[in-house]
């Protein structure tokens, strides 16, 4: 009979200790954090790569999927997230490049909004290469870029310029075209 008041008194600290002891036993794994804007954009870039087809698969590196960032790196979380993702079992490498001359070594180029003023020149230089051009600067597709990520209120979507994709001898899956907010034909 005396046990019950005693138990009630120590029930709370006992419960806490039990929970904490149980908690200590497991090793740490990555914490589930809320995603920021650039982590989400990195996710988009991976999906664009997965839903695109390149013409010449023979030259492709079997180990690695290389992505280039042309211009100012938008955010460290963007690069870190891309580096932590895998593309069909291959590791993704991210390299920062300063000019389009190095572009031929990459499958996908992310053109930073810092290069806005140079955009027509950049796109002209990349014309003959089968590189998927992606950006988050406004007006990217209208200016001839292939896939442009856009801000819609508090979400992210994207546009596609089919003509630019065709010119580079690439193709995008119909699923990707279906979800695009706008499709440019020239």
């Amino acid at each position, binding site marked *: 009979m005396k046990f019950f008041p005693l138990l009630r008194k120590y029930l709370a600290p006992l419960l806490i200790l039990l929970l904490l002891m149980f908690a200590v036993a497991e090793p740490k794994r990555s914490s589930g954090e809320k995603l920021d804007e650039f982590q989400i954009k990195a996710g988009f870039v991976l999906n664009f790569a997965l839903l695109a087809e390149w013409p010449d698969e023979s030259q492709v590196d079997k180990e690695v999927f290389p992505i280039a960032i042309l211009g100012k790196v938008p955010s460290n979380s963007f690069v870190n997230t891309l580096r932590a993702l895998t593309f069909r079992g291959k590791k993704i490498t991210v390299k920062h490049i300063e000019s389009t001359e190095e572009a031929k070594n990459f499958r996908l180029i992310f053109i930073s909004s810092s290069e806005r003023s140079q955009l027509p020149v950049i796109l002209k230089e990349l014309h003959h290469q089968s590189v998927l051009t992606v950006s988050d600067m406004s007006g990217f597709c209208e200016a001839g870029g292939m896939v442009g990520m856009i801000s819609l209120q*508090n979400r992210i979507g994207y546009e596609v310029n089919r003509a630019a994709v065709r010119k580079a001898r690439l193709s995008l899956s119909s699923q990707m075209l279906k*979800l695009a907010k706008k499709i440019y034909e020239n």
Partner: protein
Amino acid sequence: MNEKNKKTYLIERLENSIGALALAVVSTFLLTILPVPLQAAEEVQEPGVANLTLEDLMSLEVTSASRKSQSLANTAAAVFVITQDDIRRSGVTSIPDALRMVPGITVAKINSSSWAVTARGFNGLFARKLLVLIDGRCVYSPLFSGVFWDVQDTLLEDIERIEVIRGPGATIWGANAVNGVINIITKNASDTTGGLVVGEAGNYDRGTVGVRYGTALGEWGSVRAYGKYFNRSELKTESNLAADDGWDQARGGFRLDGKSGADSFTLQGDIYGGTERETFNVPDLNSPSFSSNSTNDTKVGGGNILSRWTHSLADDSEVSLQLYYDRTLRDIPGFLNEQCNTFDADLLHRFQVGKIHDIVWGGGYRYTEDDNTATQYLTLNPENRGDNLYSAFIQDDITVVQEKVHLIIGSKFEHNDYTGFEVQPSARILWTPNEKITFWSSVSRAVHTPSHGESDVRLEQSIVPIPIQTPGGVQTVPMPNIIQGPGNLLAEEVMAYEAGVRVQPREKLSIDMAGFYNKYNRLVGYNTEFPTASQPFILNLLQNNLKGETFGGELAADWRVFNPWRLALAYSYITTSASAGDTPPAHQASLRSQLNITENLEFDLWGRYVDQCKDYLSNNVAGYLTLDARLGWRPVKRLEVSLVGRNLLHQRQQEYRPEFLQIIPSGVGREVYGKVTWNF
């Protein structure tokens, strides 16, 4: 209790708190050092975006790096968030019932249409130590500074989340956030495009129907409109008779959100009306017990409109302007005939100074017009009041050690028409030694300013037979028992000392603990004067003649046992020495289980325990253990069918007895209802 007992009581409490504190310190110390060797092992970092498809990514909400919204994990206060999913899977049909899952909050149903809700003690029909806001609009009634929960409602599916902060939130939110702040946030209109139809029916819920339709407005905005009607049945009284307290309510509203570059804009409004049947125990000279029951229909109605404009400036700063108008009407035959208009304007500016200071400051003005008509038992003097409230606040979040230690200091300054100038400062410290654990501690002062009702009321509550010495000997004379406001009440004050820890020892387990010690001064109580020749009635004059202390703690734990099964635990403990009002239940516990049997089949359970408590007359109200169960099924993508059973463990449970107004209370019993939700 006498001095000796008081001493042993205090010492015992001190021993308990030292014991608990030592336990907490040792346990958390173990937690922080033990995982260190495990951290050295290779970390498997699977980014959150890894398995998301295009559709998933397009549905995520973005907190852009430029708008520094303070994540709740970094708040130096006891916070609990009720998500839309928590609401959906709990099977609740009203906002107060959803609050039962929050540690530190006590919810008690008084009759079919009334609730008593409070944080950390001092509950009552007119509990007034809790500030409640819906989308930034303050919803407590200026008449009693309490919340009329019967009219705080919306389409529950439109609620994005409910943020509950226990402890004084006065620095930013203002007076009456003495024990806590509840922020009910509805979804942005862009999240509710398309159509929704909801229908419910059961033994207590005679019928609820809700419709909502939303659409995008070009590229810049979205708008939605909704309508809702419900009809709730009666409950049973303490003597197990039908209480005849059914009620119904219709409401509708809209919300428009727009964004263009650095500006975002919201416009929203609601309108509602309803009828509630209630039975009151009223003074009656002709009855042998000098009281009789009177059943009448209370009529409620109101509407509001709110607009908010936020402009983001360069380098992480923003300015926000909010304006709202709120009108409420309440007609309780014999007791109240009130119309209230509120106009409020608030300005807020947030900016950074270097990497060290994150400052938010602002000012506001509120004009409240409370008009009453005298009724049979209750009058207010003056009947009509127009009150002005001027407020300003400032808060600085100082980064003392980059990413690790923050010091947050601030104060609110208000001028009101009852007590003049009030200052409510607070100081908080936040320490994050690593990303898995956060310690916080705070000291704050908060006040509750008197309301029209407390200050100016005169209520004939009952008739009490009093033995009076007359020339002919002692005679029993029936005397009116009057409750009266003095016209010049002071503000109630609290000094709150709090501390807490938030820890995430594993990816799928998080634990949040908080403790508090509140010292109250100038609490409102009664000063009772017995009848005299010149005062032929019992006068209970409201006065600031009480003090008190409360001490306690809360624990919330969230554990995803394995992917389809989640457990959520909430526990609270409180002990009080205050002799004002009721005595809160010492222990409260809530355990929710959410199980996804298959991708389309959900089975949810919710067990709750509430300890016994005492009402305002020190009568016992029995404690209870109860269980809710829900089965949810999605036969096709856009349709959800659910079957819910609530309060399954008892036939009838009295949860509270109200103070001040003698409403005949009724108890909750077993409820069952079926619900269909269709998206199109």
